[in-house]
């Protein structure tokens, strides 16, 4: 379960280019719920995700994961509970390390790291099996350095790394945006499969309206640092891309009127 309570964040406070990124944002995601976040540039999607993961500290407000307040914890402590797939395939993996070593790092995310050997035979076998689910042949390239993989392979690896160990919360930060359409579909399909199988509480940011329509239990539209619209249940199930874009248009008109 994820709960964001009246989160506020202002950049460059008191300066000419003051920017309110989060303006009392409230959001609640039940356990096992898959929320899809949309919104125009500058709506606060990235700020929200960064605030949840810990790389952005809030001015005020709280972040709760499974009922525990994590607002004061640094990124590496929050990583025990949540996993994240970045937009940039370069960002989510260690390029100069091998596929197996990357899997090991993710495997140890919520565990205490010991002085025992890292890559044991049993672990390698387990990683091979988990990677084979992707059907990308990564299971045969465990000793390949990640920098030699394609963007799609790297992103798929990031995904497998993130969902391993069933985190309390999975954050997907436009994780298919940097991929070509075909690869994006493969990664998205793998995402949905993992999220449904493991019943992960998931928050996905996307610019892809089709993805917002096709996936997730709830669409959350952000605007000016707060939730402007939520679509769930039957309405979510029946919504079409034009409907969603319609909401965007309404919002844009309102924004024009407001300014």
């Amino acid at each position, binding site marked *: 379960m994820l709960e964001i309570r009246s989160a506020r964040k202002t950049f460059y406070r008191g300066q000419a280019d003051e920017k309110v990124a989060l303006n009392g944002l409230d959001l609640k995601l039940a356990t096992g719920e898959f929320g899809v976040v949309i919104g125009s540039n500058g709506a606060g999607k990235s700020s929200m995700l960064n605030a949840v993961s810990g790389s952005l500290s809030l001015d005020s407000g709280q972040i709760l994961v499974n009922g525990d307040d994590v607002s004061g914890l640094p990124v590496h402590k929050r990583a025990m509970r949540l996993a994240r797939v970045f937009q940039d395939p370069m960002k989510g993996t260690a390029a100069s390390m091998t596929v197996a070593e990357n899997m090991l790092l993710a495997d140890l995310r919520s565990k205490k790291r*010991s002085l025992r050997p890292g890559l044991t035979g049993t672990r390698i076998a387990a990683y091979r099996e988990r990677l084979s689910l992707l059907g990308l042949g990564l299971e045969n390239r465990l000793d390949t350095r990640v920098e030699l993989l394609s963007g799609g392979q790297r992103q798929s690896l990031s995904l497998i790394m993130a969902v391993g160990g069933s985190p309390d919360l999975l954050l997907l930060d436009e994780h298919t945006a940097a991929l070509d359409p075909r690869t994006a579909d493969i990664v998205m399909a793998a995402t949905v499969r993992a999220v449904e199988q493991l019943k992960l509480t998931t928050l996905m940011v996307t610019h892809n309206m089709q993805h917002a329509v096709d996936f997730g239990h709830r669409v959350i539209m952000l605007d000016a640092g707060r939730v402007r619209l939520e679509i769930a249940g039957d309405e979510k199930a029946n919504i079409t891309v034009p409907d969603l874009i319609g909401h965007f248009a309404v919002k844009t008109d309102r924004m024009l009127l407001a300014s």
Partner: protein
Amino acid sequence: MDFIQTTIASFISLIPVTLAQSLILSFVVLGIMIPFRMLSFPDLTSEGAFPLGGCVCGVLLAAGASPLTAISVALIAGFAAGCCTAFIHLRFRIHTLLAGILMMTMLYSVNLRIMGKSNLSVFGSPTVFDWVPFVRPGFPASKIIAVGLIALVVFVLLNLYFKTERGTAVRAVGANPDMAEAQGINVWAATIGGVGLAGAFSALSGAVMVQSQGFADVNMGLGILINGLAALMIGEAIVGKQSVLRQIAAPFVGAIVYYQLVSLCLAAGMPPPDLKLATGLFVLAMLALPSLRRSRGAAPAREAFRE
């Protein structure tokens, strides 16, 4: 013909001495490699940590401490120096190179304070080399055996460590600090510990060097960094850096080959004052090689080091 013969003769006669020296200095190269390659943290602390280790060891030996105690305290001092550099970088977001320059400049005064004068003779004090059986102390053989043994132990331990769960995490910090953090790794702890360890190795080198040469000098670290870098480049060119094993072997192999090369140059009659220029040009050439090979066009993207 005569020239070549005398050159080779004097080079060969110097091989054992040079080997002993290069084994001692291989720890500095290790102290440069660990931050540079494992943590992507180009670090200059060794230029200060090396004489720090020497000064601490010298003072303790002069005070009658056992050689092992002297080395241990030197190790701790070097570790602290490395930790300070890493902390300066992390806490104040000062570039790693600048943090290192600050640290080594400040360490110069610290070293002078520790010794109270600019050099200190500890000739005749007991050394770790005295404990090597079957060879007469003071001869290169005892140094080669003693330091070679330490080097072997360090090499094996480091190789094991960087393949453990924790060691892999430390390497991840160097490979991609953002990713490491997102995987629950404490970047601060890994960086401070890693750079500290490197400082400890540099200090170890200084301490053993003082026991080997019989005196400590505040200026003993002058140019050690560029020598170490040159040795590292040679080592990596010979054994490569594709795996943990190779990366850790590189400093040792590099140090041994590099100092023999230097010895050869000196035997061939190269004036010692030109040595730093030659070393500098060599390092420059090694660093420039990849960009020259890639293309003649615009300079390629810089390596992604922490800023």
